[in-house]
């Protein structure tokens, strides 16, 4: 509605002045995008990922992959915390508030192995759920071994990731060398590159949960 005495332009009313029309269209564009993304306001990005890391991550993804109808693909960069740096053990933390109420059907963790890998690297990824006791609980999501440096994509058990209610996902990364006698001399950050542009990242494919899917499964 344009105000008293005028009608909706789509129904043959007067066309607004160009300046007013442009302002209206821009406002419409904002509302349309926010509604389409189910957002109430534009996100304020306080810690944007570095451009180089972002570009590398996007290049690593499957080319031409298209999100299914109303689905999403998410790249989340890890924040690294290490309860102990003497063992090859780190906790990768991901903030995934967008993935709530969605059905996760694909998850891959990308890790960068240093070029100076002295033997076979054995990796295990656990989902870390802080619980009672000192250790919390762990669920094994993936195992991997390699002798090749560079980027590695570890497919994670999506069933192991489901049921995560918290928007914060913690993955525990354990690694060790299978060959040679250099394990004790190798610091974790000399095997896996977890800093700067080579930060680990998680690739998720999710789709909206279908209402009634649980009922259908029960039938």
């Amino acid at each position, binding site marked *: 509605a344009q105000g008293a005495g005028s009608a*909706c*332009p*789509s*129904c*043959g009313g007067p*066309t607004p002045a160009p300046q007013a029309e442009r302002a209206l*269209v*821009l406002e*419409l*564009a*904002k509302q*349309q*995008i926010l509604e*389409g*993304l189910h957002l109430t306001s*534009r*996100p*304020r*990005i*306080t*810690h*944007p*990922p570095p451009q180089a890391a*972002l570009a590398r*991550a*996007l290049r690593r993804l499957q080319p031409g992959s*298209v*999100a299914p*109808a*109303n*689905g*999403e*693909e*998410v*790249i*989340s*960069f890890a924040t690294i915390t290490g309860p102990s740096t003497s063992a090859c053990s780190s906790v990768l933390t*991901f*903030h*995934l*508030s*967008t993935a709530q109420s969605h059905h996760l059907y694909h998850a891959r963790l990308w890790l960068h192995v240093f070029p100076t890998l002295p033997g076979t690297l054995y990796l295990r990824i656990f989902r870390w759920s802080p619980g009672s006791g000192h250790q919390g609980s762990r669920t094994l999501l993936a195992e991997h071994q390699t002798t090749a440096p560079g980027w590695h994509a570890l497919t994670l058990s999506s069933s192991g990731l489901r049921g995560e209610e918290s*928007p914060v996902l913690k993955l525990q990364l354990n690694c060790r060398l299978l060959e040679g006698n250099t394990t004790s001399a190798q610091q974790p950050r000399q095997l896996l590159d977890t800093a700067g542009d080579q930060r680990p990242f998680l690739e998720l494919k999710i789709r909206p949960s279908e209402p009634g899917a649980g009922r259908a499964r029960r039938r």
Partner: protein
Amino acid sequence: TPTCEPETPLCCRRDHYVDFQELGWRDWILQPEGYQLNYCSGQCPPHLAGSPGIAASFHSAVFSLLKANNPWPLGTSCCVPTARRPLSLLYLDRDGNVVKTDVPDMVVEACGCS
């Protein structure tokens, strides 16, 4: 669907490109740099209302049904979108994650008289 010309008073598709820079949103929408926000405007005189050649679509069929089954004020035929397509967006969410998604019904492809 005719694209609007300055002298076209009848229902047509008005093509309008919105640059995300203009919205001040380039910091969180990574791709595309903008999108074609088309909209429908123009008159729908009675002889075009519900005209199949103008708005042969599911939407016009629904409008026709509404008209047939409900008291519909005379002269309220509107120039409305009859076909839309989704837009793929790559954006940063509030956690700094990169999200790629298809937003449905974002780009108006065709207009017609209801």
